[in-house]
């Protein structure tokens, strides 16, 4: 068997992930994070809408630096998941499947979501 003579190298801490691989695992991690905190986000949405009093409570809560940090984290998770998702939809219709373009688009996804998170984060702080 040829397959059995192939060298095995599965040390995850030493494998250098290509950029599209990094976008892919971050897509998974950001999606899981959004799922895990969906209940908190839904609760905040409810507080912001229900009554004028709950709206004030929501504003006060969102004003806390810990809440802001959390929301900025969620913002990054959303933006990365969103833009990486758009890239996958483009890949489905065969746009960006060349090695050069797929790398460029992956860097674009990482960059745009990070920059937007920083800019919006500063605006919201």
């Amino acid at each position, binding site marked *: 068997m040829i397959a059995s003579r192939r060298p095995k190298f599965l040390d995850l801490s030493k494998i250098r992930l290509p950029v599209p691989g990094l976008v892919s695992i971050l897509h*998974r991690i950001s*999606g899981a994070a959004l*799922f895990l905190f*969906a209940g908190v986000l*839904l609760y905040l949405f*409810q507080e912001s*809408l*229900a009554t004028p009093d709950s709206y004030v409570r929501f504003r006060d809560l969102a004003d806390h630096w810990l809440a802001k940090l959390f929301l900025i984290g969620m913002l990054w998770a959303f933006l990365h998941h*969103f833009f990486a*998702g758009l890239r996958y939809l483009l890949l489905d219709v065969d746009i960006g499947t060349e090695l050069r373009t797929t790398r460029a688009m992956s860097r674009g996804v990482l960059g745009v979501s990070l920059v937007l998170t920083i800019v919006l984060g500063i605006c919201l702080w």
Partner: protein
Amino acid sequence: MVKHVVGAHYGLRDWLVQRVTALLMAVYIAVFVGILLICPPQHYGEWRGLFESQPMRIATLLFFVSLFWHAWIGMRDILMDYIKPTSVRFGLEILVVVLLAGYAGWAIQILWSLG
């Protein structure tokens, strides 16, 4: 002799659902961000007013249903990849379904309790 591959045959449907729900959410988000940019709500009344019209409520409900269906497929894929013991995975899958179904009911309650 032809060897038949047997499976649950939900793969292609879920693949499609994942993309259709993603597109629906992307359109909703684009419109919503557009509304926020053109006329940002200045106070509670305006923010609430956004969700009071029936079309907006239906669109938002459609967004939430897409979101939770999308999350179910994604979480199931993650659980299938990392949780090998069938009983543990099954238990977690049930937990995810119950949680997401509950969120869907909660989202309806939030939207339809507005005036």
